[in-house]
């Protein structure tokens, strides 16, 4: 098992490299000269050239990539063009905020989705199944920004019980696990949770219904097992497939929170990305995308490993 884990981790290295290259190129292929974002439009050509050289933007692309990668592996993602601060400093705070938001959203979405999906799968065709399928469809099709604004209108404007913006009182960036801060999490987390809720509901429903159709469930009934005993078997059979979809969804949550973070001014990676895009802040853009992509890669690796551990039929060779 240990050598298997090691091998899977090694397989992830070329993927990570390819991802880095893609991140690097993505920004350079996009139209617009990043230098224009930092210097005034009427600056003399000499100044523009000097800044270009300072940031290494005058060198050929492969060299730029090599230099960039060399720094990246040392944990240096460069400095923001807009603020001059180290990208890693801002990113560190933003990643924490995004993690907090997406983990809470995942917890809500996964718990509700698993429960709904399991019930729907067990009582396929009943009214409860139809309700669950309807909720799932609504969850995946409602646009984030629309739902976010509706929630704000209801809970922040009309009833005024929950804050509409920021991650803490007075727009502070320091997080603490107290009610004053957690209040700020509720609306964005709920908004973010509806898509994974819908997708997990659908998936778990399908998996559970398929398992209950298998012959061995009849054997279990024939042995005299009651509902609880059978549920244990269904759960263990459903775990690998459910886990896979959850891992994927968690990855999407991390990257996909950009709209929600913008709607709620949540100081996470999505928010950071959004402002970096508008300011053509290439180092911030590259660093953020890279971190999100690498997170996605490691998440997939983790899910693969967990699936292997859970399903005896998957060969570890």
């Amino acid at each position, binding site marked *: 098992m240990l050598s298997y884990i090691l091998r899977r981790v090694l397989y992830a290295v070329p993927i990570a490299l390819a991802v880095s290259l893609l991140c690097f190129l993505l920004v350079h292929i996009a139209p617009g000269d990043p230098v224009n974002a930092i210097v005034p439009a009427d600056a003399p050509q000499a100044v523009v050239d000097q800044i270009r050289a300072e940031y290494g933007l005058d060198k050929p692309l492969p060299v730029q990539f090599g230099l960039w990668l060399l720094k990246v592996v040392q944990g240096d993602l460069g400095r923001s063009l807009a603020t001059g601060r180290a990208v890693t400093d801002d990113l560190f705070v933003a990643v924490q905020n995004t993690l907090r938001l997406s983990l809470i959203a995942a917890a809500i979405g996964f718990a509700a989705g698993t429960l709904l999906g399991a019930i729907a799968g067990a009582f396929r065709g009943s009214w409860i199944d139809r309700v669950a399928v309807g909720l799932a469809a609504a969850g995946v099709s409602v646009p984030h920004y629309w739902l976010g604004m509706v929630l704000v209108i209801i809970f922040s404007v009309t009833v005024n019980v929950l804050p509409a913006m920021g991650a803490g009182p007075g727009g502070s960036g320091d997080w603490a696990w107290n009610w004053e801060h957690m209040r700020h999490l509720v609306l964005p987390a709920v908004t973010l949770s509806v898509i994974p809720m819908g997708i997990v509901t659908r998936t778990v429903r399908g998996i559970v219904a398929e398992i209950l159709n*298998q*012959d*061995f469930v*009849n*054997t*279990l*009934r*024939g*042995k*005299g*097992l*009651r509902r609880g*005993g059978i549920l244990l*078997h269904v759960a*263990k*059979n459903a775990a690998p497939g459910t886990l896979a979809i959850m891992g994927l969804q968690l990855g999407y949550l991390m990257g996909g929170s950009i709209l929600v973070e913008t709607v709620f001014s949540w100081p996470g990676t999505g928010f950071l990305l959004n402002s970096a895009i508008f300011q053509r802040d290439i180092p911030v853009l590259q660093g953020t995308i890279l971190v999100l992509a690498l997170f996605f890669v490691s998440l997939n690796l983790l899910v693969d490993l967990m699936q292997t551990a*859970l*399903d*005896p*039929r998957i060969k570890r060779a």
Partner: protein
Amino acid sequence: MPHDPGANPLVEVRGLNVRFVSRDATVKAVNGVDFTLAQNESLCILGESGSGKSVTLRALMRLNPPKKTVMEGAVRVGGHDIVAAPEKAMADIRGRVVSMVFQEPMTALDPVFTIGKQIAETIIRHEGVSRAEADRRALGLLELVQIPSAKRRLAAYPHELSGGLRQRAMIAIALSCRPKLLLADEPTTALDATVQIQILLLLRRLQQELGMGVIFVTHDLGVAGEIADRVAVMYAGRFIEEGPVAALMRGPLHPYARGLMGATVHAGMRGTRLTTIPGAPPDLSRPVQGCAFAPRCPQAGEDCLPAMPELRSPAPGRNVRCIRVDEAA
């Protein structure tokens, strides 16, 4: 009843009817089955595909899909009323009083639980013993069904065993709480010929050693001859003939039973021609008038059609539903 199962039969079935009701059709799978089985007796059910053998077997432990099944008649197993028992009581009966070996050991076992766990959970469920005690019993059961290196096999998953070993494990699960009645639905159909014989010999030995009643379904007359005391031939959801194995196989009385024996290869018939029964069994979602076999029967006449033939007993211990067979020959 000519067949005398003694004062205290293990299984008593009277007028069993099983229907499957769905939106588009009602399938009448079992249409009036009567029989009794003594303690320690073994009965083999023969019949074409779709004649209702599996449904009858599952009815004995009320294992047909609960939502769409309508079950009527009287079924008593080991003194328990199977038709009327509440679901909770049924769960106590299943696995403890009556258990079943299924046809496909690959799909009938949970792929993500070890063999040992699947045996042990049954024992824990019914006898409330500790995990350690259940594991110890599971090991004993694997030895009982002659699985080599049993200890190692406790930790094996179903896909790690051969078909024959899987079926032995299935039998171990079925026997784990010493049921009085063992049901086996084509227990060897999915296996190689050589493995089939081993499993059958095992079943026969276990029946004698543990003293159980056994009802099994097979398409193989040789199998039936080997381990059955009595044989029942099923057609369109009824037992159309039933009797002691030797007498019935030597001289089947019902035209369908004769056809079935003629259509199957078995020992001592070298040189005779294999025959087939022309036509197809009736559609069970339509009502049948009179003898269900009449449309395919070489001896059928007008007199076969008005009503289903009553049970006749032409010889002690033998029953047949055919008006062409003379009572008490």
